[in-house]
């Protein structure tokens, strides 16, 4: 296995959050990261998965020196994020804020030149690098227009080009394909793979499981400020493979989930709300063939209307459900406190 290029050691971050209740301002500590430790190998594509508020962005902000951790440490490309901030920044190309972070009154080319200078890329090298990026990312049609005239997708591509301007050994990409159309997102993933093939280490956060499965050598699932699972996508999926996943679609009255959970050999249930009162249940169970009839009985007895039942391939999403009892989808409903953290990996 290659040597680590990113090392995180017991990193914790506590914010002071201000809450306003009945006109009174209260300060409350919020622990966004709880002793996170991990290593990312040189040349790896490492996925960081988790729902909103899980701590992904806080971890990335600590790694990129935007935030000071409360305790613990991290080292990137041989440099300490606390003591050698500028060397750490010079080691990374970042795309953290989607299409924000660009100057709208400058053209795409002027933006790239500006950020190239901030990354200490010499002027003559910068010129060639910009031309290379224009070709690689097909920016030619719009790079000499001011950014204010760009579509959201064009701004995202320019933000990606900005992350590549210094040709750093490490790339940190936070949801880079959000707002991109399908072909552009596919093209970007292709470029990410190519950059990785050239030797770059890539840290990639996404909500899109197919992206993580397509790109990442290893992933870490982060929830409530802790890493709850880490490994290759195959290993993580294998860790729950002894369980079947069945998807049920229909109208499920209140109490259906609880009844389903009470069925022997049902391990976890996650609900995703659809439209018109319809929902999707992802049910994780042992031996679905044997238990399916009991699940149907439990739901029918509660007045549920089941419109479809499908067996499902185990995905990273199912790994997340198995670990947390929730789905990663934006419209996820939290299913009480029956988290199964620490199970299976």
């Amino acid at each position: 296995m290659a040597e680590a290029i990113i090392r995180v050691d017991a990193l914790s971050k506590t914010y002071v959050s201000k809450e306003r209740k009945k006109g009174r301002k209260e300060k409350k500590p919020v622990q966004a990261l709880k002793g996170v430790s991990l290593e990312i190998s040189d040349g790896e594509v490492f996925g960081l998965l988790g729902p909103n508020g899980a701590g992904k962005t806080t971890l990335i902000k600590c790694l990129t020196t935007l935030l000071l951790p409360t305790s613990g440490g991290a080292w990137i490309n041989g440099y300490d994020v606390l003591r050698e901030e500028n060397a750490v920044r010079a080691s990374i190309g970042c795309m953290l804020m989607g299409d924000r972070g660009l100057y709208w009154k400058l053209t795409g080319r002027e933006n790239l030149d500006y950020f190239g200078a901030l990354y200490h890329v010499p002027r003559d090298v910068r010129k060639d690098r910009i031309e290379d990026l224009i070709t690689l990312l097909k920016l030619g049609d719009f790079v000499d227009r001011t950014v204010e005239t760009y579509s959201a997708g064009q701004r995202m591509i320019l933000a990606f080009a900005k992350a590549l301007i210094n040709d750093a050994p490490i790339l940190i990409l936070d949801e880079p394909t959000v707002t991109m159309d399908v072909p552009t997102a596919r093209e970007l993933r292709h470029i990410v793979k190519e950059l990785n093939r050239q030797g770059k280490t890539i840290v990639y956060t996404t909500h899109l499981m197919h992206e993580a499965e397509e790109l990442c050598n290893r992933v870490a699932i982060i929830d409530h400020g802790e890493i709850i699972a880490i490994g290759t996508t195959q290993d993580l999926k294998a860790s729950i493979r002894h369980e079947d996943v069945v998807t049920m679609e229909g109208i499920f009255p209140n109490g259906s989930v609880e009844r389903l959970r009470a069925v022997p050999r049902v391990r976890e249930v996650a609900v995703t709300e659809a439209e018109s009162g319809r929902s999707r249940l992802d049910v994780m169970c042992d031996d679905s063939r044997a238990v399916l009839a009991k699940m149907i009985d439990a739901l029918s007895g509660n007045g549920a209307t089941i419109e479809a039942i499908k067996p499902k391939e185990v995905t990273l999403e199912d790994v997340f459900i198995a670990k947390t009892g929730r789905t990663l989808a934006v419209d996820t409903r939290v299913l009480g406190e029956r988290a199964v953290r620490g199970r299976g990996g």
Partner: protein
Amino acid sequence: MAAETVAKGFGLGRPGLRASLDVAWTVFVARLRIITRYKGAILLESFLPIFFAAMPILLGIAVAGSEENAANNFFQNTQAAGQGTSEYRLYMLLGSSTFMVVSLMLWLIGYWIRREQETGTLESLYLAPAKRLHVLVGVTSYSLVRSLAAFVVAMFVGSLLFGVNPLSGNLLAAIGYLMLGVPALWGLSFFFGALILRVKEANSVIQLIQWVVPFFMGVYFPVTMFPPLVRITAMAFPPTLMNDAMRSALLNITSLYGPGYIVLGLMFMAAWITPLLGYEFFGMMERRIKRNEGVGQY
């Protein structure tokens, strides 16, 4: 767990003096490019000092009854401060034009930080290895060029409108005092920028300085007219020193601070101390923000 990780260099980045100069220059050029894409912005602000000066000049004439009476009244009042000049129009025009330089230097930095916070480019700046000082040199140099352009246009057009000759005194000394006052203005702009970074709101702070700064600078009157405590505070304010030094050179009058060598000594001191304190304050505020919510939150 061992701390070290493998090191693979900085890609295309080549830090060093040349790269640092390139940062300051690129930031400076980018700011100029952006402002020139807002049509007429620089030209319009150049006329502001003329209006600032016209109001007290016309008020003085209205109260005194004639231009001659206004000049006599002004002479008597400035005589009491040990200066004695009847050239109230140039006094006001120079005061308001210098105020414009101070004001622009401060609020261009304030608005720059606020705008960068809102658009997300501040976080991009903090992700880059360029030192904050080099970026600030680029931005403050741009602010300086823009404010000096406003100063020159205002002095030229204002002199024509008010019928005064700004070249009658020691112009070179006045320019020297102006340039010597600039580092202190940089220092003040660092303080001001840090404040905006912290409070995340520019308008109210800028509104406040629009009134407090000219008041303490003595834009329309000698600060010796203040009660002792306010006078000492006003005279300790570097822009007041710069304004008074420029007036003493252009109007051939005595400075409120004393002989020329004292004025020069004080200006050198302000040119060193204010930027150092300002930059330290900026760094302190920056660390405080990074310990909690981070620069990205606005």
